[in-house]
């Protein structure tokens, strides 16, 4: 939260003005306090309000709100992951929805297997396809630990391979954005096919059991919500550590002047690839937490529109800061949940307008505006 707002654009004049912060404390005291408050809210206040306060009370937190908040926390993780590549490395990905969805699918596979083990019924899509056996790549997904491993490893591996070839050929800027979009589009088409073995159009759904506990109960919603909150806090600390490390400094340097970094003797490939892969793994974890909370994972999560929306959460909150994307994701998704019910017509106007207004007038987002205001007023 003490990172200077700096430019993402190598060619602009901002790059020259960006200054490296002298090494300061990992987090300022008020930063630690905010983090603690956040964890208290998530781990103590919310469970008490949801589970201990009786139903009729005004203070009672209904399951709808718990599930919604949990979902938004997952989006915040994705936005944070996006910010690490876009805000700190200058790589705009239009395919982060793919990594998120892959994590969700890995968890969905486990949840389907658990449902089959508990009830003896095969998932709907297999009955529809008249399959009696799970395809070979479902092997082992009945173990939670393996599914969780897949949720992290598959996006990570895909990002590593894709990133290796892309960064090695020094594809960057808009070209990179567009091929990431093509990648997620191709994946969406692939997952839409029934023969791919992931439920086609409908995706994976009908989740009943998670680690032996029934899904859909208040207790489960609260547990997943707490897990999401803790994961988000953990990711934030990880990201903070990463961008302050030497690795992170080089990354920022690459963002601002890649050629100069190369002339200094660094190979940008491994720096970019490292943050790119880490970001994909974070998205995978977010997806794995997301699937059981919304009860379904389907290929529309991979649509190019979803991925580009992730970029706007980050842009609105403020890229190049770590708190910004979290604020952006929470604000945009909360207003989306409200507006799509209250004024469904207005939502696309608002979202489209946000895209335009933020890029035109607030390139560093809400956090950037806040910093400007603070500079001006003391």
């Amino acid at each position, binding site marked *: 939260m003490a990172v200077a707002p700096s430019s*993402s*654009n*190598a*060619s*602009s004049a901002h790059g020259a003005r960006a200054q490296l912060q002298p090494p300061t404390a990992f987090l300022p005291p008020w930063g630690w306090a905010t983090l603690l408050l956040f964890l208290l809210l998530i781990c103590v206040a919310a469970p008490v309000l949801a589970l201990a306060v009786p139903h009729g009370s005004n203070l009672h937190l209904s399951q709808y709100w718990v599930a919604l908040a949990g979902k938004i926390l997952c989006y915040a993780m994705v936005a944070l992951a996006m910010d690490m590549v876009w805000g700190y490395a200058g790589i*705009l990905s239009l395919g982060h929805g793919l990594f998120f969805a892959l994590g969700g699918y890995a968890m969905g596979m486990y949840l389907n297997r658990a449902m089959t083990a508990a009830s003896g019924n095969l998932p709907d899509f297999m009955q529809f396809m008249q399959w009696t056996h799970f395809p070979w790549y479902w092997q082992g997904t009945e173990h939670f630990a393996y599914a969780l491993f897949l949720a992290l490893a598959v996006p990570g591996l895909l990002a590593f391979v894709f990133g290796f*070839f*892309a960064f*090695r*050929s*020094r*594809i960057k*800027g*808009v*070209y990179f*954005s*567009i*091929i990431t*979009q*093509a*990648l997620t*589009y*191709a994946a969406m*088409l*692939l997952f*839409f*096919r029934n023969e791919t073995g992931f439920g086609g159009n409908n995706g994976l759904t009908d989740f009943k059991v998670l680690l032996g506990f029934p899904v859909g109960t208040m207790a489960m919603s609260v547990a997943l919500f707490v897990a999401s909150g803790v994961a988000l806090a953990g990711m934030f600390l990880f990201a903070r550590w990463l961008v302050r490390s030497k690795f992170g400094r080089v990354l920022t340097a690459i963002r601002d002047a890649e*050629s100069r970094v190369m002339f200094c003797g660094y190979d940008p490939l491994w720096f970019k690839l490292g943050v790119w892969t880490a970001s994909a793994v974070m998205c995978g974890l977010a997806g794995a937490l997301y699937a059981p909370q919304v009860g379904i994972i389907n290929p529309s999560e991979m649509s*190019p*529109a979803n991925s*580009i929306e992730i*970029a*706007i959460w980050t*842009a609105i909150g403020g890229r190049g800061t770590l708190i910004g994307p979290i604020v952006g994701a929470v604000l945009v998704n909360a207003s989306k949940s409200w507006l799509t019910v209250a004024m469904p*017509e207005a939502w*696309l*106007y608002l*979202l*489209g*307008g*946000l*895209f*335009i207004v*933020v*890029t*035109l007038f607030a*390139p560093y987002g809400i956090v950037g505006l806040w910093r400007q205001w603070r500079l001006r007023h003391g």
Partner: protein
Amino acid sequence: MRRPGLVLRTLLGLTLLAVVHAAYALTPQEALAIAGGDTDSRIAALRQAVQHPDPQLATFLHKLLNDEVQIDGGMVQVQQGNDWINLATGQAVTPSANAEGVVNNNYVRKQLESARAALDLFSPSRAARLKAVRQMQDDPASVDRGLVEQALKIERDPEIRKRLQLLHAAVLLTSPDAAERLAAAKELAASNYPAVRTLLLSRLDHSDGQHTEIDPTVRAQIEKSLAAIDERLAWSERLGTLFSGISLGSILLLAALGLAVTYGLMGVINMAQGEFIMLGAYATYVMQGLFQRYLPAEVHYSLLAAVPFSFLVAGGVGMLVERTIIRRLYGRPLETLLATWGISLVLIQAVRSLFGPQNVQVDNPPWMSGGLHVMANLILPYNRMVIIAFTALVLLAMGLLIARTRLGLFVRAVTQNRAMASCVGVRTARVDMLAFGLGTGIAGLAGCALTQIGNVSPEMGTGYIVDCFMVVVLGGVGQLTGTVAAALGLGVVNTLLEGVAGAVLAKIAVLIAIILFIQKRPQGMFALKGRSVET
């Protein structure tokens, strides 16, 4: 050329009607045999009657098919308006209580219909005869030999004659005379009809241990003819694939041309390009509505009026967007990308609010429907051909505009060196606006063309944006030749793969191939050689 045939036909008609009326007209006995009795005897009577084509028979068959015939005590009565007429006397009668309407089962109905079609072989209208012979070619097994021979005697139109001869050969294939069968098999090698192929195959059948065709020489000839037909059919299939590939490529090209201007020449990432296509399509829809309202007689030509209109609408909105938004973002490609995505959302929602979220219907004008029969299994639809020609025209116009006009010169100058162009007095801001208007206007033209082959809905543009970018990126930024080659190449490759692997896998394969290709040649197929500084 046609005159002798016409005279002959008229003569024959007259003869049938007047002179030999007693001998050839449909007798009451024949009519009764066709209308009543069991199915087999009715069919036999029908076959018999068809040997003497006669307008009365045609009317009678027509009435039978319309359920306007009844039998009353051995007398056939047909309905005329509200009255019943006795077929034998031609007098109006009052049907008795035990009059029974003639009921046709499906088999009889089918036979009646094909008999009626056969009678059309003697119609004075060429179109009716052609239609009849085409219909009979689809099912040569149920065609009557005598009728075809009779028609052959008087037919003078070369195309119909050729078809009739083939049809005759197809009928002869089941003749009891082996020599006739051999000749027929030889003649049928020239046929392109899938139905003939099926017929030949059925003659080769020996599933019950016995050859349908007993004569081995005829069998050999049939096999030879089949091979000849198969080869020709395979060729026309290949031609058909190539055509659909070029057609798909031309659509891609049309959609991507606008992007080639805005992205290729100006460096603006316009994610709303698909929505400008959509605007063009809706402009076409609006133009059709205006014609329906004010010029209903000329409604078929609304599409022509829509061409400039869609260009102006999409181009106008484009210039407005450039003036208000894009202008502030030059040199910040990633931000442009996000802002134009926002524009696309607003445009989608605006059109949804104005026209409703469902598809709207843009009609195909009659002069664009139908197709050119190249071969029996190869029809080139006119609308696809028109779109290919339209794409070529747009491409030509744009090429000339960029290469030969003052505006084109300015656009190229600003693209190459903005500062220098500005120094020598080019009003760069105005050039930017016009170039963006040109790019979006061409997208509007694409939308106008796409109304003829796809759905028109607020979301129709989103499907094109990924493809368009692929085309531009593959072709090389700023390269019109590259864009053309990339679009046509992608179209053909996609169509070929579709035949092998299905539409979805083909698309995935193409996308992955492009991703791999960009690894190798990040500047596209037709990259400019030079030492431009990286940005």
